[in-house]
């Protein structure tokens, strides 16, 4: 069963997650009558204002042809609860790859439950040694890490944890009671969660200040954080407080797999680095100060839930300003490695595409700056998102048609919206940001970078060649790799908490299925309605922590359609969808049946002359469509006859099969189930169409001949050694 909470709870969650913002309007039963469990909710609903629907421009095959909405600007002042605020001073030693810092956390309990402890993430301890839960899970899943060099390990140690009082001298030591806990797997060797008991409960609404010192060693990039040569991408590096959920329980999982989750706040971070190193970080750089051979860079950012930074002496800095009518301007800062100098404008183009399309479709970017990091070659830090900063990634040789770096740039810039602003719990529901963002990425790429081709790499990936006549499928967002009964979609229900998914389940559920679910929903609702759903959800849950049920509720409410049947299948189950054309037959019948006839033959038929009849007898046709998968979805069935007539049937998709029968002047030439490819979740779209005369032989010959050429050249390779 899908666990849809009623709207009352949804609203309560929203209101607990943050203080009421001025742009929250009371919208009673907005958009359309709600249905199902949602409709049963009697209370009015607080939602963000729905952006005005523009001119009715339903989606074409490749997305909206025009922009439908007028994005609402963000209000001035706090946009988030700002209940986890950090002030940190950190010194980085590039020789030892060590970080030494102090941290003051100003934390407010925004729940309705008191708590008598804090829980901190110490992510870097995931690579402290091979007994950590992260490395154990990696080994279980066949990702060996047996060759970690001596300088590859990492750690973060915390000391001098003190609860600050009103005066400078009023401090209570919390270190003695601090302990590592393993709430997820009980692994006592894991040190990624630190529990710090407090002397007194922190009551709802109360704020405390905790000061600590930490000493961390950067890993040789694990999970896209660490060092590679004289380049560092420092993420998940500081002791970070978990999230106290509205129910008073800590959401502070061990670092095993998945990504991250934290509360919003203000970050004020000073980084001391060698003077020659160029630095980029979450936030704006407010000041720099020389300190011997080092420079102290101070970055400040409000309303974010994480802080990452990068540095290298090799970066060159490039700046542009995003200015698009109707959207707030954004200063873009690109830190570029020297081997990717030729790709500078491509990084900016990707960022602009994301800011523009996401901004117009879902809602505007909420910050006035963004930092784009071109990661060092083979640093394994590419394609990662942090508030107001993200890493792209490309190769020295990257043909234009490869969409690299455009693709990863759009995706990671897009995470500023799905993750950065709408900050769901990635430990539990990674698909809410990865799936939403993958969907948005493919949409944006289709709109902004339609030219795309397969790119082949040779000589250990050094040289790249685009094959312009081979266009990869995009609409399916990777779903095309999951065919039939062996579908990866059967690995875990999407409702499985992300940190608990089995081998191979995380990626497919978080990225592919999430995106395909949205693409299917878009096709089902139509772009105008779906865009309204998405922008409402975005606006409503920006700067808070929504859950899947929140999205389901918004989708039903805004679209005015019952969607529980759909979410039950895609979210809380592992059914796969596979509709197909089954048997197709067309035949002609004589007026007199074969065999024993109960009627006299008409004049002429007995002697085979057909008398005076000049018209040809009709064709009888039977078209059977099948549902091979367990999933059920209403679909169109399009039948085309040899005389050009086309009939469209609407099949509810419930039965295992359904036969349509026709008597028509022409025979059936072509049958298509779901001709518009609405059900992108269909794991085997190839069997959705039947052609009486498909040019199978010619197509097979064409492609076999191309393959043959490769075989011949491979044989020439063998002949080199003759």
């Amino acid at each position: 069963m899908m666990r849809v909470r009623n709207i009352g709870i949804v609203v309560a969650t929203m209101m607990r997650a943050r203080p009421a913002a001025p742009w929250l309007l009371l919208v009673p039963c907005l958009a359309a009558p709600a249905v199902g469990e949602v409709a049963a909710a009697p209370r009015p609903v607080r939602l963000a204002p729905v952006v005005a629907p523009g001119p009715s421009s339903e989606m074409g095959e490749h997305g909206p042809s025009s922009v439908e909405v007028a994005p609402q600007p963000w209000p001035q002042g706090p946009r988030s609860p700002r209940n986890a605020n950090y002030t940190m001073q950190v010194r980085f030693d590039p020789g030892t790859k060590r970080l030494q810092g102090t941290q003051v956390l100003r934390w407010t309990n925004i729940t309705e439950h008191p708590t008598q402890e804090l829980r901190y993430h110490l992510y870097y301890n995931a690579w402290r040694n091979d007994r950590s839960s992260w490395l154990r899970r990696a080994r279980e899943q066949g990702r060996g890490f047996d060759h970690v060099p001596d300088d590859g390990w990492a750690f973060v140690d915390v000391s001098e944890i003190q609860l600050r009082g009103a005066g400078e001298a009023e401090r209570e030591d919390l270190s003695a009671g601090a302990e590592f806990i393993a709430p997820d797997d009980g692994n006592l060797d894991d040190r990624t969660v630190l529990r710090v008991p407090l002397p007194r409960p922190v009551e709802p609404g109360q704020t405390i200040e905790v000061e600590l010192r930490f000493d961390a060693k950067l890993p040789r990039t694990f999970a896209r954080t660490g060092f590679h040569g004289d380049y560092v991408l420092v993420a998940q590096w500081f002791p970070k407080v978990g999230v106290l959920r509205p129910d008073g329980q800590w959401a502070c999982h061990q670092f095993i797999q998945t990504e991250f989750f934290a509360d919003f706040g203000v970050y004020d971070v000073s980084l001391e680095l060698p003077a020659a190193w160029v630095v980029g970080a979450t936030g704006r750089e407010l000041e720099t100060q020389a300190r011997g051979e080092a420079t102290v860079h101070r970055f400040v950012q409000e309303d974010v839930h994480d802080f990452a930074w990068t540095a290298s002496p090799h970066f060159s800095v490039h700046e542009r300003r995003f200015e698009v009518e109707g959207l707030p301007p954004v200063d873009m800062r690109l830190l570029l490695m020297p081997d990717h100098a030729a790709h500078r404008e491509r990084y900016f183009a990707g960022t602009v595409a994301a800011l523009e399309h996401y901004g117009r479709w879902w809602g505007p970017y909420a910050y006035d700056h963004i930092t784009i990091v071109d990661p060092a070659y083979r640093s394994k830090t590419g394609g990662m998102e942090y508030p107001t900063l993200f890493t792209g990634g490309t190769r020295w040789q990257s043909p234009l048609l490869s969409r690299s770096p455009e693709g990863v740039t759009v995706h990671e810039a897009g995470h500023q919206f799905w993750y950065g602003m709408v900050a769901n719990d990635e430990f539990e529901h990674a698909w809410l940001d990865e799936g939403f963002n993958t969907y948005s990425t493919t949409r944006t790429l289709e709109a902004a970078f339609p030219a795309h081709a397969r790119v082949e790499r040779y000589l250990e990936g050094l040289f790249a060649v685009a094959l312009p006549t081979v266009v990869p499928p995009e609409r399916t967002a990777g779903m095309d790799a999951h065919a039939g009964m062996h579908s990866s979609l059967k690995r875990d229900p999407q409702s499985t908490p992300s940190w608990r998914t089995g081998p191979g389940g995380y990626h497919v559920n978080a990225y592919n299925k999430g995106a395909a679910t949205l693409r299917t929903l878009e096709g089902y609702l139509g772009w105008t309605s779906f865009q309204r759903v998405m922008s409402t959800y975005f606006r409503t849950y920006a700067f808070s922590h929504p859950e899947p049920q929140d999205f389901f509720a918004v989708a039903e409410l805004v679209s005015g359609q019952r969607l529980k049947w759909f979410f039950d299948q895609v979210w809380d189950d592992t059914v796969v969808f596979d509709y197909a054309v089954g048997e197709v037959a067309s035949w002609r019948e004589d007026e007199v049946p074969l065999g024993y006839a109960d009627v006299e033959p008409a004049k002429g038929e007995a002697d085979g002359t057909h008398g005076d009849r000049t018209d040809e007898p009709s064709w009888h046709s039977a078209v059977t469509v099948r549902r091979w998968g367990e999933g059920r979805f209403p679909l169109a069935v399009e039948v085309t006859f040899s005389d050009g007539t086309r009939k469209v049937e609407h099949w509810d998709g419930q039965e295992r099969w359904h036969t349509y029968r026709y008597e028509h002047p022409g025979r059936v030439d072509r049958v298509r189930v779901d001709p518009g490819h609405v059900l992108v979740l269909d794991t085997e779209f190839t069997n959705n169409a039947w052609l009486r005369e498909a040019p199978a032989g010619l197509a097979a010959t064409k492609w076999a001949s191309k393959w043959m050429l490769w075989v011949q050249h491979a044989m020439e390779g063998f002949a080199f050694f003759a």
Partner: protein
Amino acid sequence: MSSHETNDSSLSPASGPPPGSARAAVSRGWDRVRDAWPQVLAAYGLSLLLSLSLAAALQVGLRESLEHREAAERLLQGWDGLWHASFSTRAEGLEATFDAGVVGIGAVLRSLDALVQGALLDLPLPLVVAGLLYLLGWVWLGGGLLARFGGDRRGVITLGAVHFRRLLSVAAVGWIGWALVLGSALPMLSRLVEHWCRDVVDERVHAAWLLGKYALVWSLVLAIRWVVDYAKVIAVADPSCSAGSALREGLRLCLRRARAVVGIAAILGAIGLALLVLYSFLAPGADQGNPFKILVAFLISQTSVVARVVMRAWGLASEQALWEAGRGR
């Protein structure tokens, strides 16, 4: 003396490059290839024969997969990634090697990539078997062609049979050398390069190391190839010469005439590279939608195979010409 030598005006001191030079050898080699077109094309015939049998098997698999499918239409117009995703999940053996990477120049570059990285034996078994048969075919035909270039007018198949055993022995020595270079030295160098480049942050630096690695490895591969080639030339020219003696003579020639040996390879390599670039412009893509266009695309693509066959024969003929020039013939 071979009949074609009477036509070998390129050796004239007044009009052509100096006798015994790489240019003269290449020029003379081309004359010999030109005079033996049908025999050279026999090698192409072998390529066609072996690959057609494999392609026919693939064609059956593709056709079955496309029967009554809309994907057939899309594959005629271009590529259908959704169909291929479905096809590849069920594909085994030869079919598993089929994807769109063989389009255009991709077919050539992919095979060259496997050659350069010493990964030909990693191909699926049927392809390796076909490749090895073709290799043996070239040992056979190589002897026949060299004899033919040398003036023997018997059939190239018959001539190949005469020299096959000794040439096989010569080639076997080469195989040992190449196995050591590509099977041992290359992986070892790869590990070293990876170690040295562990902290490299600029892909161009890594690229330089990679190119250096392959330059070193392929210098060795080519050195072995030259010794083996000249040993074959010698073995064919002197039927009484054992494989061992031929290899010693071949090595001696390579050392004594290193400049010319390398020169021939450089000239032919440059021509081969030019042909590759030319073909990259001509290589048919995926967009042939009717039988005529498919046929034209096939014929254009086959010119690249013919070119490689001719280049190989030209190389042998040029090496033979160089050896003969050194003997004052």
